[in-house]
């Protein structure tokens, strides 16, 4: 049992922190968000150069052999900067699935493009009717010779507007919400029959509705065994939870620091508002929510590699904590900043909005409370 970071992990944190501070201040971030594309390919290239995109992959694949703790450190620092570049979908979700379950041929075909920063990937798993249940899949994959033909609609696919490749969940067999029968398929976004409707999301990211109409893929598009896709997907989403928990504690830390600072300087009735006991205790509660969230974030990232049952319970519990704490910290940070917290020009509201989306991402508090009880 050990709760300390290795020297390498601390160096990694310092590197990401410096990069974000130097290259991704709030104004730069807003410029990127408001740009036509909504992300910076330049920043993404620099991530590649820094080795961030290689972090979780094995050395033989050209990676740096990092684990969940390294990802946690990176995501926390990206969270502090409200970075919109698609580390989560490309590296954590899709990269994770590939590195853990793809064939050697698939890895050789795809990982270099990820590690090199050429390709953005998106995980298209949710559907309009599926809410938070990844097994609720209507998109069909019909065997066709060696390959498959995909038909269906995928909903709110984060980073899809920027992606060149998608991992798509589709039903090879079984009924709508069956656990068995899913497959995860690698799909080129440029493939015939793939169309997207792109839009911005409230947290400054971009997403798409993805329609697949008779999209033909080869046998080499299927990751892992046919029908076993849900297990791979569940695991990937839990890794995603570990990562957004880390991102969220980055947000909360910034919000708490900003709020304490604001309350020390902002005066009302001739004194700093931070001298009012009610606001002091509110900030103490925000601090405690943050600390509890940090604890759960460490916990889940240490448990991702344990047994499936332990991983699920850990992820569900952590997501509940982060959902509640993020909501509380976000709302109170806005409240304590008063009118200023309501404006687009302050970063506070943007952290709040991202935390709001994270509460829903990969399933909200109610969803994971049930999952926790069942695990």
């Amino acid at each position, binding site marked *: 049992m050990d709760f300390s970071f290795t020297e390498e992990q601390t160096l990694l944190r310092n590197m990401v922190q410096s990069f974000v501070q130097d290259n991704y201040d709030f104004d730069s971030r807003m410029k990127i968000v408001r740009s036509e594309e909504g992300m910076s390919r330049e920043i993404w290239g620099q991530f590649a150069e820094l080795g961030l995109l290689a972090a979780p992959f094995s050395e033989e694949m050209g990676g740096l052999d990092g684990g969940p703790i390294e990802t946690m450190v990176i995501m926390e620092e990206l969270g502090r900067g409200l970075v919109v570049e698609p580390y989560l979908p490309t590296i954590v979700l899709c990269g994770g699935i590939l590195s853990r379950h793809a064939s050697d041929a698939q890895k050789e075909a795809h990982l270099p493009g990820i590690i090199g920063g050429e390709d953005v990937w998106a995980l298209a798993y949710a559907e309009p009717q599926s809410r938070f249940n990844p097994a*609720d899949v209507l998109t069909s994959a019909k065997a066709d010779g060696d390959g498959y033909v995909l038909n269906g609609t995928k909903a*709110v696919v984060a980073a899809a507007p920027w992606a060149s490749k998608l991992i798509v969940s589709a039903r090879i067999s079984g009924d709508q919400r069956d656990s068995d029968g899913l497959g995860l398929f690698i799909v080129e976004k440029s493939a015939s029959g793939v169309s997207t409707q792109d839009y911005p999301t409230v947290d400054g990211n971009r997403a798409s509705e993805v329609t697949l109409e008779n999209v033909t893929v080869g046998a080499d598009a299927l990751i892992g065994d046919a029908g076993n896709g849900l297990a791979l997907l569940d695991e990937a989403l839990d890794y995603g939870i570990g990562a957004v928990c880390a991102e969220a504690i980055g947000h909360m830390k910034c919000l708490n620091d900003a709020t304490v600072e604001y309350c020390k300087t902002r005066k009302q009735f001739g004194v700093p508002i931070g001298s009012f006991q009610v606001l002091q205790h509110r900030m103490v509660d925000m601090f405690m929510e943050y600390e509890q969230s940090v604890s759960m974030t460490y916990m889940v990232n240490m448990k991702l590699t344990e047994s499936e049952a332990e991983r699920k319970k850990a992820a569900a519990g952590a997501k509940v904590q982060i959902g509640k704490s993020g909501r509380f910290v976000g709302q109170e940070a806005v409240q304590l900043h008063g009118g200023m917290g309501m404006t687009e020009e302050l970063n506070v509201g943007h952290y709040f909005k991202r935390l709001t*989306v994270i509460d829903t991402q990969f399933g909200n508090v109610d969803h994971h409370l049930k999952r926790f009880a069942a695990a």
Partner: protein
Amino acid sequence: MDIDFEPEDKAFRDDVRSFIEENYPQHLVGVDRGELSKEDFLAWHKILAKKGWAAPSWPEEFGGTGWTVTQKYIWNEESAAFGTIPPLPFGIAMLGPVIYNFGNQEQKDWVLPGILSGDTWWCQGYSEPGAGSDLAGLKTKAELEGDEYVVNGHKIWTTLAQHADWMFCLVRTSSDGKPQEGISFLLIDMNTPGIEVKPIITIDGGHEVNEVFLTDVRVPAKNLVGEQDKGWTIAKFLLGNERSGIAGVARSKKAIDRLRDIARGELEDGAPLLDSADFARKISELEIDLTALEYTELRTLASESKGQGPGPESSILKIKGTEIQQRITELTMEAVGNYASPWVPQLDRGDNYLSIGPDHAEGVSQSYFNNRKTSIYGGSNEIQRNIIAKMVLGL
């Protein structure tokens, strides 16, 4: 003690309901506030003005309706149930009572008719960058030069100032004594040279509030309401009125109905979300809290109708009313699941805008973000608790 309506009240309810159904502009049914033009905002008001129903809260002599407390309650219920655009508060709820209580005859004669008819759009010049909840800390200065005040300062959070013809404004006319002394209440024509209105975009992407910069703005001395340096009394009077209208019970009922419809349409594992124990529980909790607030408001109204003005207890209405509104928008956002995240442009929507996901999901997160303001504006909920602690509990 009796909850039933008298027969004459039931008849009144039927009249009101028919009038709304027959006269409410078709193109404004179910429209979001964010999408309204200035004309849209006023359309219903002008119809009511013709009917003589624009200001039910005013005394009859100034153009009120002479309705009983119960009739006003029915009016609010029916308006909300139909989903009319809420009346703009600035003239009817805020300035009107100030004028007929504190204004001179001349002011009554020119201000009140413009409010009633909807011809004059008023905005409120209260908050300043350095004076939010601590209103008495305001710094905008008005110096009397001859028969004009020269006003210099900076107002903020001025709602819908972009449409306003006039502003009622708190200014500092003296720096002697306590901060509450030396404040005056001025009416300012927004077309006067030296006034600049600068939009503030809020986190929901909307443009509802503004900064108003005043530079050597010359205001006729006759636009002073009440006595110079004695404006604090008026300011407090106005804030008290603002509080009591803020509970929004009838509109929250409507919003819960909408939430229930949405939750009936959203599926969780193939079953309506409304049937989920967790979600049903949260809706029930909301409804119960709202029922309690409704009866608290009715109790307040009943004692007001006996001549007791809105006391500090009305801070409860502000606190609970806004908490409930915030919870409704939060739960509505939660109901739509993944489709809470698409961003709907509030400004410059453009012609090729395509909505994402089900219609009922459109803009729900932004509505949630926007509603965070309600516990900040109008005297933050912390300030309201201070008021109750001091004025009601004597602490």
